[in-house]
């Protein structure tokens, strides 16, 4: 079984977000970029399935201009066997991304598409579900445990009230939540080895997908900031403030 793992290049999760002067977007110039943390967890899970003998090959796929090779190499250094880059100038909308991934998944005859539940830049949480809908496949979102048994994936999902385990008929789409695993660290020799792994390149046109856009970002603003309040000296003072000043109890 082949596992396809989409990875996205995003702002590093430790970097403080800056807004452009003209409020058109977030300023990503001279900013450290990384693999989206949820995508990294998905790569790790795919590798563990391969190491357990469940999967035969792990293929990373990344959508973007040449610069996204940095993230492709990171996925290859973790242990993915090969990669595909879909060349686009700007990040398409989630529906287009899902259409592109669906074409690649068909071409590769992937048995499992293991991906992050959301990207930490756009926070959309859409592509996995859209991809499953387009392909008419089952979906296991917000996964904290993934097991393959026969022709089914057993996925434990983090849902509002607790946990839910679903059985999905393969091929299926699974999206990773934070507690699925802790991704491995890559060592220098792995990074050297990654540079020799194959990266195929394709385009939206090759895949027969039209890059359309129906959404537009008009502006981006900084969130309203809270003012730091006061420190109280005792529990008595706190209770008094809550009761008589804030009036919330």
């Amino acid at each position, binding site marked *: 079984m082949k596992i396809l793992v989409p990875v996205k290049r995003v702002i590093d999760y430790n970097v403080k*977000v800056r807004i452009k002067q003209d409020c058109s977007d*977030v300023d990503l110039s001279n900013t450290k970029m990384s693999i989206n943390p949820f995508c990294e967890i998905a790569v790790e899970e795919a590798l563990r399935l391969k190491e357990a003998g469940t999967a035969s090959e792990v293929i990373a796929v990344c959508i973007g201009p040449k610069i996204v090779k940095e993230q492709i190499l990171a996925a290859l250094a973790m242990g993915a066997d090969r990669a595909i880059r879909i060349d686009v100038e700007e990040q398409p909308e*989630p*529906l287009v991304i899902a259409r592109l991934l669906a074409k690649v998944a068909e071409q590769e005859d992937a048995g499992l598409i293991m991906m992050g*539940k*959301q990207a*930490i*830049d756009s*926070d*959309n949480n*859409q592509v*996995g*579900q*859209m991809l499953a*809908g*387009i392909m*008419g496949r*089952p*979906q296991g*979102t*917000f996964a904290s445990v993934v097991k393959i048994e026969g022709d089914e994936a057993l996925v434990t999902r*983090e*849902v*509002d*009230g*607790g*946990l*839910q*385990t*679903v*059985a*999905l*008929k393969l091929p*299926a789409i699974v999206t990773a939540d*934070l*507690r699925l695993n802790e991704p491995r660290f890559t060592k220098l020799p792995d990074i050297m080895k990654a540079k020799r792994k194959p990266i195929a390149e394709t385009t939206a046109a090759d895949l027969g997908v039209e890059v359309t856009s*129906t*959404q*537009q*970002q008009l502006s*981006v*603003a*900084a*969130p309203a900031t*809270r003012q*730091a*309040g*006061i*420190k*109280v000296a*005792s*529990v*008595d003072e*706190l*209770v008094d403030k*809550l*009761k008589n000043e*804030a009036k*919330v*109890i």
Partner: protein
Amino acid sequence: MKTLVIASHNNSTLSPVTLAAVSAALKIGASFDIFVAGKGCATVAEEAAKIDGVSAVLVADHDALEYQAAENLAATLQANAEGYSHIVAPATSVMKDALPRLAALLGVGQISDITGVNGEAEFVRPIYAGNAIATVTSSDAVKVITVRTSAFDAAPTGAGTGAITAVDNAVDCGLSRVVSEEIAQSERPELASASIVVSGGRGVGSEENFALIEKLADRLNAALGASRAAVDAGFIGNDHQVGQTGKIVAPDLYVAVGISGAIQHLAGMQGSKVIVAINKDPDAPIYEVADYGLVGDLHDLVPELEAKLASVL
């Protein structure tokens, strides 16, 4: 122009977060229907019909919708989507699962987790874990939207006279089945809609010590929350996690105990009206957003607070 609001429920009662989604729908336009998908969910439909201003309540009552699995829910909604300009749902785990799939089936985009409505095609939503707020427009013929319910007040209910109509086109895709569920049963208010939330973090120290937090929560009739660190450490279940990837809350009072205030946690609670922080580290970032900070050992302060609240409440 008409909006379809998808009800959040557990087959027996309507979740109050549905009313926040209705509030968002009312800012888009006055006319809305409610869709109830479930199994044995007649009482939910009756509750939904009382929401002020609702025109019709469509009910798909089917075995395949017992858990509102995304595959079946999205296909069922697709079969009933005609005539609606907007499809709106509260951003619960069920709807976050199903709505993007529905959007793809309809061939349109989705606007996720909106916190504001500026007309029928312009919406406000947080990005970058709430560190930036985007204003976006959509030109899609049908706008599929999930709503951050903490950003909207509950719409009025009780005076509605919606007509309840059963639909018989529920879809069973046969692609997945639920094997088991571990859903926590609690007498406490629901985290997403509670007016007071008491949360514990890594500083609480152990699963046993979390009893202190629970006791304080019960004294305040509050929902119980936790930071990711506390959940990862196994002190408490994932369903209590507040933050960027957990639940987003905005209660009247948020009490953060032993929580340092990682940016991912702040993203989930900084919309709260009043924030109280109790931490032993006076420089913890949580104090930068707290209205009232109390520095000291939570193991002494929390029982003292609980006892003193008992005498004033």
